[in-house]
């Protein structure tokens, strides 16, 4: 097989050809065929490096297939196929091309063997994905997309700066484990951290993902952040301070998710929280932990896609994804409800579902290395996940108070995509050995031990009990129409006063900071305009005599420097 038969290039070729196809069904078919075609070189090629070429005297590797990159490239291909099936009904060429280019870029980045290739695909994911947000074609989506693009491209620019310095210091462009000895490696870590939505670098995630189209969010949820997890696992496995970072990530989105009304935004918060588990795994860096992170990324992509698909189907049929406006949909969308519950069970790590067999690997790795506090935090976060994703999403969408909406069941292609994904979620949970056998390291791990199962059930039942009690006593924060923070009295009764206060405090400070920055920015731009704009003091067409004066000044300066013998 030719060594240039690169999966990402197949995607790009598809993206180029697709807009030329005028027949709608043929386009959707192409969208579906490309991930299958592109999976072939992935499955048939043996581990090794292919597609090497020289650039500016350095040998670059476009296609490195080893066990770590294989897992991610495989699940990316799978996600691309499922998303394409889910989007069968979409006729918008912009979205179709963006989907192909985006999936291809993510796979290309996962297979990149050097930092330059990585950078090119890294920026590719940024640029391609923003069109999935812009495809909504609203003013708000435009601005959201712009913010998203600036942050994503910024991550790429930081990556490039880091690569340049790293190259200068070490003379190597290889994409392998970095040691945090020079500024370059730190910058590379920062750029990975932005894409991985580290705490304080995470805002783009909750800002952008819920703003995309129905199908766009499904696509977005699979790639960018998991690519960052892959990059971290490749470059920074065993970097100890990633453990507390990851633990923080599992924790703080929970509170936001509980009070959030937009169900797609709730899912985005829980996405952020799930990433935390993977980052913890990467930070521990043992073979078991890296396996855990990879396995969790694999199963996470599937069940998170499933959840976004089911909420997306609701949004598609009812036109809203707000908890306050939904409810009682199980009567007319029973299949979607079942799939949603399967996704919820998976993310909550019910035994026999995919989340259980991957998350318990990370938890075991944490326990094995004696990170007691981290272990407790992850346990608490697991309960939180069950709470806001496992119960809240299906409950408010399909049960709760009857909203009176009687939408039709989701279209067949959505049901089929959800069905396949749901099947995979259960299959992985029931027969984890299939997934374990392709993980980066050979580790024998048995998820279904008595302790694991009992611990998990305790966690789940108590969490459910808490939810049930709160609902019955009416204390649970009702799904409000807006996320207006003036209604803080509700969640003050729920959470300790301190939580409400700190959220309000942080939000206020954040808003003020943003406002202040905007004012400063506007003032700065106005100042720059006054200087450099047309007619500004630097660029206005000053008289020729002025230029002659400048000539004299420069001549004088050079002359003085030359004749007076300084230094």
């Amino acid at each position, binding site marked *: 097989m030719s060594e240039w038969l690169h999966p990402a290039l197949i995607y790009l070729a598809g993206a180029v050809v697709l807009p030329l196809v005028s027949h709608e069904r043929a386009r959707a078919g192409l969208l579906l065929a490309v991930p299958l075609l592109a999976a072939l070189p992935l499955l048939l090629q043996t581990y090794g490096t292919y597609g090497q070429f020289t650039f*500016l005297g350095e040998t670059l590797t476009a296609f490195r297939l080893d066990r770590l990159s294989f897992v991610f490239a495989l699940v990316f291909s799978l996600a691309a196929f499922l998303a394409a099936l889910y989007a069968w009904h979409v006729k918008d060429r912009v979205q179709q091309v963006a989907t192909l280019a985006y999936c291809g870029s993510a796979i290309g980045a996962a297979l990149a063997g050097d930092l330059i290739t990585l950078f090119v695909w890294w920026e590719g994911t940024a640029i391609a994905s923003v069109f999935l947000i812009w495809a909504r074609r609203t003013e708000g989506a435009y601005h959201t997309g712009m913010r998203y693009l600036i942050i994503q491209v910024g991550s790429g620019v930081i990556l490039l700066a880091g690569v340049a310095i790293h190259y200068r210091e070490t003379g190597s462009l290889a994409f392998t484990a970095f040691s945090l000895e020079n500024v370059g490696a730190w910058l590379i870590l920062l750029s990975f951290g932005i894409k991985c939505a580290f705490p304080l670098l995470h805002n783009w995630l909750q800002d952008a993902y819920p703003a995309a189209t129905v199908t766009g969010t499904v696509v977005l949820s699979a790639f960018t952040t998991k690519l960052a997890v892959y990059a971290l696992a490749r470059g920074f496995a065993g970097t100890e301070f990633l453990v507390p970072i990851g633990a923080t990530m599992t924790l703080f989105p929970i509170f936001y998710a509980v009070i959030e009304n937009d169900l797609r935004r709730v899912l985005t918060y829980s996405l952020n929280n799930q990433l935390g588990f993977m980052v913890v795994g990467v930070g521990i860096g043992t073979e078991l932990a890296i396996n855990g992170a990879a396995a969790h990324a694999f199963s996470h992509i599937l069940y998170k896609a499933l959840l976004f698909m089911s909420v997306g189907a609701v949004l598609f049929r009812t036109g809203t994804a707000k908890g306050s406006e939904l409810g009682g949909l199980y009567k007319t969308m029973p299949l979607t409800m079942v799939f949603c519950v399967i996704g919820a069970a998976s993310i909550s790590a019910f035994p026999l579902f995919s989340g259980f067999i991957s998350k318990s690997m990370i938890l075991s790795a944490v326990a094995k290395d004696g990170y007691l506090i981290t272990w407790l935090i992850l346990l608490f976060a697991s309960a939180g996940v069950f709470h806001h994703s496992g119960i809240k999403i299906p409950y408010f969408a399909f049960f709760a108070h009857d909203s009176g909406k009687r939408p039709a069941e989701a279209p067949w292609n959505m049901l089929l995509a959800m069905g396949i994904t749901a099947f995979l979620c259960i299959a992985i949970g029931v027969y984890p050995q299939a997934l374990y056998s392709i993980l980066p390291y050979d580790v024998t791990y048995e998820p279904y031990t008595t302790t694991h199962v009992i611990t998990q059930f305790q966690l789940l039942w108590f969490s459910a009990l808490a939810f049930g009690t709160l609902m019955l006593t009416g204390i649970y924060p009702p799904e409000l129409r807006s996320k207006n923070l003036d209604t803080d009295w509700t969640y003050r009764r729920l959470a300790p006063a301190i939580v409400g206060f700190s959220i309000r405090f942080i939000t206020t400070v954040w808003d003020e900071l943003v406002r202040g920055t905007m004012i400063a920015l506007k003032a700065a731009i106005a100042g720059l305009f006054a200087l*450099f704009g047309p007619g500004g003091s630097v660029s206005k067409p000053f008289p020729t005599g002025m230029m002659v004066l400048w000539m004299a000044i*420069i001549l004088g300066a*050079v002359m003085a420097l030359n*004749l007076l013998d300084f*230094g």
Partner: protein
Amino acid sequence: MTIFEAVHQHAPMLTVLVPMLSAPIIMLFGNRQAAFAIALTASTTSFLLSLQMLLLVAQGGVISYHIGGWAPPLGIEYRIDAANAFVLIIVSSISTVVLPYARRSIADEVAARHHTLFYACYMLCFTGLLGVTATGDAFNVFVFLEISSLSTYVLVALGAKQDRRALSAAYDYLILGTIGATFFVIGLGMLYMATGSLNMVHIAQVLAEGESNRTVRSAFTFIVVGMALKFAMYPLHRWLPGAYTYAPSAVSAFLAATATKVAIYVVLRFIFSVFGIAEEFERNTVQYIMMPLAVVAMFAGSLMATFSLNAKTLLAYSSISQIGYMLLGITLLNSTGLTAGMVHLFNHALTKGALFLAVGAIIYRTGSALVPHMAGLGRQMPWTSASIVIGGLSLIGAPATAGFVSKWVLMQAAFEAGMWPIAVFVVLSSVIAVVYVWRLVEVLYLQPAPEGRSVSEVPMTMLVPIWALALASIWFGIDADFTVQASRTAAEALLAGGFGGEDATIMGTRGRP
């Protein structure tokens, strides 16, 4: 001796002579169809001859051509090494690509009675630029510089049919250019006083033997400052935005891609080959005056471009910041830096050439160069708009474009010199480039076309030159080995001092009785 051998023997002179003679011939014919044919033939001939010479010296040799068989230092010598062969290629290839485009564009933008005059002046300007580059005689540089400058003033003024402000822009340029040229010739006079020679190689030898004195230092000052005006070093750039904005589009493209590049080459030649960079005072000038101004240019140029209303002004200001990058590479005074400067000379010529041609195409169809008037052209003129995106990406320095290669080498040079803040400046100023390029992209693609305007794509004779340059800026971003290698050879030839070493291949004497 066959005709081929004769052409081969006299290639250095013919490169300049053919376009020079074509100018009076054009005027004699006085017919604009003939004028175009003659100009295109002459330009292509020069390009082929330059290509042949580049292949001869690409591995580091040097050609010395004695005009009329008179040996230097008394006779006039043309001396070609890797550095100027590279610049000759830039000038002649851009001219050959621009001419076919110019035919239609000029028909639209210049009054019909001036068409033959346009081709004659264009060829004179072309001659001047080639002559400045090819010659090894210091006074010859001045003569050719004046040939190119005087014809440039006329070319800029020809834009008056579109906008009367072309006249004042040309006048401004005339005054300032003349002052620059005067500075240069004063410097040459002082050099002649100090060394008694006008041959660059000979001057370099005499200077290397003797002590440096105040005459030499003053000569250096006048030459560098005079040429700094010619290549629009910030803040001596004032003539450039006006001239590039109001000149006919083909002229803007040609000048932006070649004229400033040649002036930079002259400075390089004088700093490295004639004066030799060993002297303390030269290093001082380069590091304490030129380097800071280069950094300021990178930012000020980009910012002014960001706020420009006219797309041609925007590109002109962007040129000022790009010249800053070239100058910055040169002022790092190491081999990699000089390579960065040379390679950006080439890459920027391609990129800016493509962009000016594309904006010219928009003017050809819509009659306006104002950015707000370009709304929605992404759908109505898809090919032209796409080439602007490619050119813009290259200006920013996006990977897989020529601009990326330049900036990558420049950053490596900055690290090599141990000046990492310089690398930070390069990145930061590139971010501003993102802003002004995005302004164009947004207007072209994201804003709806105004009601009632329906324009179509420009004809093939204009599209092909635009895309030739746009594709070249992608090609040289992916396959950078050729440009970087040629630039490195040129940079090392310059850093070695002298003018291409002692053992030159002597040409031009054979065939004389």
